[in-house]
C-alpha cells in the first residue's frame, strides 16, 4: 500500500509541475515566434489568420493570440512588445491615439495615423479593404422618415441607438451625434444582438460594421455621413519592430491583394458556410496565389 500511494503522489506532483511550467511558458511570449493578435471579432480574426498563414508558409513560426477584445486591452500589449502584428482599422486606431483627429479622407487618415503611432509601432501598407462603423436603419424606417443621411435624423424623435457597450463613450457615439448633427438618441447596449434587435424593432438605428454581410442581406440602409462623424477606416497591419522587412513585404502583398469586396466575401463565408477562420484564410490565400 505504501509504494503505490507514494508513487501516485510523486507522479501527481510531477505532472502538475509540468502542466504549470507548460502553461507558464505559453503565457510569456518568446522572442522567437511572431505573436499575431486579433480582436474578438470574427472578421478581424480571419485577417489575422491570413497574416499568420502567409508568414508560416514562408517559414516563420507564429504564436496566435486571438480574440483579445478591444484595443484598450491589446494596444498596451502591442506597446509592451507582447504582440508583434495586428490587423487594425486606420480610422478607429487613429481616434484611439489622437481623439481630436480631424482627418476624414482615406489617405489623410492613414498619414495622420502614421504620425500618431508611438515609437516601436509602424503602420504597414494600407489595404483597399475598408471596414468601419456605420449607422444603419431598416429600409422601412428609412422610407417612413425620409432618411438618407445622418443629418436627416434631426427631425425624428425618440431614436433608440444600439451597439456595443463601449459605443456610449466613443467620439462617434451619442455624444458625437449630438455635437456633429444635433441628434439626440437613447442608447441601448445591444452588443452582439445589435443586428437582430434592429430587425426585431427593439432599436431604430444600429452601429454595424460596413463589411458585415448582413447589411446587404437584410437590405439595411446605411446613413451617409456628410459631417465626417466617422473617420474613413481601412484595414491596416500594425507591426512592432520585431517584424523584419521580409515579413513586412509578405504582409504588404496581402494588403494590396485584399479589396473591400474580398473582405465582405470572406465575412460571408464565415457567416453563411460557418467555416473556421483557418479554412477561410487558407482558401483565400491559395486563390490569390500568395501561398503554395
Amino acid at each position, binding site marked *: 500500500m505504501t509504494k503505490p500511494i507514494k508513487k501516485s503522489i510523486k507522479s501527481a506532483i510531477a505532472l502538475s509541475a509540468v502542466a504549470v511550467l507548460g*502553461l507558464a511558458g*505559453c503565457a510569456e511570449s518568446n522572442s522567437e515566434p511572431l505573436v499575431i493578435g486579433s480582436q474578438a471579432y470574427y472578421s478581424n480574426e480571419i485577417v489575422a489568420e491570413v497574416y499568420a498563414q502567409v508568414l508560416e508558409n514562408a517559414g516563420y513560426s507564429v504564436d496566435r493570440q486571438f*480574440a483579445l477584445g478591444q484595443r484598450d486591452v491589446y494596444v498596451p500589449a502591442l506597446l509592451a512588445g507582447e504582440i508583434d502584428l495586428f490587423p487594425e482599422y486606420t480610422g478607429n486606431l487613429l481616434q484611439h491615439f489622437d481623439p481630436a483627429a480631424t482627418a476624414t479622407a482615406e489617405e489623410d487618415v492613414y498619414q495622420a495615423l502614421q504620425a500618431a503611432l508611438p515609437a516601436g509601432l509602424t503602420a504597414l501598407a494600407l489595404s483597399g479593404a475598408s471596414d468601419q462603423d456605420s449607422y444603419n436603419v431598416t429600409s422601412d424606417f428609412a422610407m417612413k422618415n425620409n432618411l438618407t443621411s445622418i443629418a436627416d435624423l434631426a427631425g425624428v424623435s425618440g431614436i433608440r441607438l444600439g451597439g456595443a457597450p463601449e459605443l456610449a463613450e466613443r467620439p462617434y457615439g451619442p455624444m458625437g451625434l449630438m455635437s456633429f448633427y444635433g441628434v439626440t438618441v437613447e442608447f441601448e447596449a445591444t452588443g452582439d444582438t445589435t443586428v437582430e434587435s434592429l430587425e426585431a424593432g427593439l432599436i431604430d438605428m444600429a452601429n454595424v460594421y460596413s463589411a458585415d454581410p448582413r447589411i446587404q442581406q437584410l437590405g439595411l440602409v446605411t446613413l451617409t455621413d456628410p459631417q465626417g462623424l466617422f473617420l474613413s477606416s481601412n484595414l491596416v497591419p500594425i507591426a512592432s519592430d520585431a517584424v523584419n522587412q521580409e515579413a513586412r513585404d509578405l504582409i504588404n502583398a496581402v494588403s494590396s491583394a485584399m479589396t473591400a469586396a474580398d473582405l465582405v466575401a470572406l465575412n460571408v463565408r464565415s457567416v453563411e458556410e460557418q467555416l473556421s477562420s483557418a479554412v477561410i484564410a487558407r482558401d483565400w490565400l491559395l486563390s490569390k496565389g500568395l501561398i503554395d
Partner: protein
Amino acid sequence: MEWAAKNLDFVLELSFNHLLISLAPLVLGSVFAFALVRFTPVKLTGTIGTTFSAIYAVPSLAIFVALPAIIGTSYLGPTNVVIALSVYVAASMFFSTRDAFSQVPKPTVFIARAQGLSPLQLFVHVELPLAIPGLIAGLRVAAASTVSMASIGAIVGVRNLGYLFLDGFQRKIPEEILTGLLAIFLIGIAMDIGLWALGKALTPWTSRSAQRV
C-alpha cells in the same frame, strides 16, 4: 452536427486547452488548500474559512478582470485565469479537505501512534488513505465547477471552449454553441469518471469483498 464535423480540429485544439486550463487549477488549488489545512494554527481556521466563503461568492468574471489590476498578471495568456481558478478550487477544497481529515477516526490515529509510527508515516499510511474518499468527493465537485467556470475565461481572450460560445453567438451559429456545451459536458464527465477511478485505485480495500478475512 455538420459544423462540428467541419471544424473538428479546431474544437479538439480548444478542448485540449480547456482540459489543461481546468486541470492545473485543480492541482494547484488542492495543494494550496491542503497546505492551509495542515499547517495553519487552529485559531485561524475560522478566519480563513470566512475569507474563502467570501472569495467563493465573487463572480468569476469579476475576478478574471480584476486580477491583472491587483496582482499585475498580464491579460494575455492563461496565467491570469489559472490563478483565479486555483483560488476558487482552494476555497472549495479547503472545506472538503478539512472535513475529509477530521472524519478520520481518532481511535485509529491513536492506535497507529501507539504502534510507534512517526508523524510522517502516520500521515502517509493512515490519515491520507482514510481521507481519500472525502478528498476525491471534494475534487469531483471542484472539477465540475472549474470546467464550466473556465469557459468564462474566453471573455478575456483565453483560448478554450468558451470561445465557441462567444464566436457562435457573434456569428449566429447555434451548432457552434451546442458543440461547446457538449464538449464541456464530455470533459466534465471524463474528469468525474477519472477522479472516481483514481479514488477507487487509491483505496483498494473499499472494493474488496466484505467476506474476506
